[in-house]
């Protein structure tokens, strides 16, 4: 048990050191042609997502999940020794994202937790990108859950 507690202490340390600390800021020029293609290939049929002439033309809410920051992890975040896999994505939508908008995405680690894996511990990292428009309006949060399968040290 002492060894296990020592192992999990590293997660507590990571949480202490990295949670809610902004590590990336990037700017996105929103292109209506691009998000309309995204909408079509995903099967959207509502004109406000696929028709540039629609007066309410806007990106589907899930589109912000496709926006990738300059880096996905803090530069000083330790290498956990396993391959990262995408475990899930979530979006909190707050306001429409329009063609031609300039969004600023600011990223931080929102959560770090663990589960058991067959060959070791699985560490889940939740990265949140908060997106703001030119006026500073918070338009969306885009979360990515990455799971890293560690290998047991023998």
């Amino acid at each position, binding site marked *: 048990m002492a060894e296990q507690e020592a192992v999990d202490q590293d997660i507590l340390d990571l949480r202490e050191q990295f949670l809610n600390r902004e590590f990336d800021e990037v700017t996105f020029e929103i292109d209506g042609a691009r998000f309309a293609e995204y909408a079509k290939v995903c099967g959207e049929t509502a004109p406000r997502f696929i028709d540039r002439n629609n007066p309410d033309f806007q990106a589907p*809410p*899930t589109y912000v999940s496709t926006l990738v920051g300059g880096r996905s992890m803090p530069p000083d975040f330790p290498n956990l020794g396993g391959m990262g896999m*995408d475990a*899930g994505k979530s979006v*909190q939508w707050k306001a429409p994202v329009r063609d031609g908008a300039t969004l600023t995405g600011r990223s931080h680690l929102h959560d770090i937790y663990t589960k058991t894996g067959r060959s070791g511990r699985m560490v889940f990292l939740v990265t949140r990108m908060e997106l703001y428009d030119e006026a500073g309006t918070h338009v969306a949060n885009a979360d990515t859950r990455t799971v890293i399968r560690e290998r047991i040290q023998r």
Partner: protein
Amino acid sequence: MSTVKTIADVEFGGELPSFKPDTSIDATRRFGKYVGWDSPRFTDHEGARKEGLPGAIVPGVMSQGFLGAMIHRWAPDAEIVAIDTIFRAPVLVDQPHSITGVVTDVDEDASTVEIDITVTNEAGETRVFGTATAKLPNG
């Protein structure tokens, strides 16, 4: 296809019309070309196998887009205020999948509904599931 316009049209337990997303290699290539995620694991079966996958897989962000599209097909005026997608297993390209959705909560005061959404393959296995909260116009 039956669509809903307002919160008054929605009943707890109601099913959204089933949706068969386009999981073809052409679709993932289009996605790769216009949106990103153009790695061979998404756009080329052979390239994906070289990475140890059974074949090309649909990008997670594209699966999430399918779920959003399904909700809008059911309720064209819905505003999806939150959507949470959990990737349980890869969605394989060129294999038929279907998406089902059901209403699991109705809040008439807030004019919102909660929806469970599940992507299954032909074997009936859940590959992706999630929940969404959508705001609908008042009746």
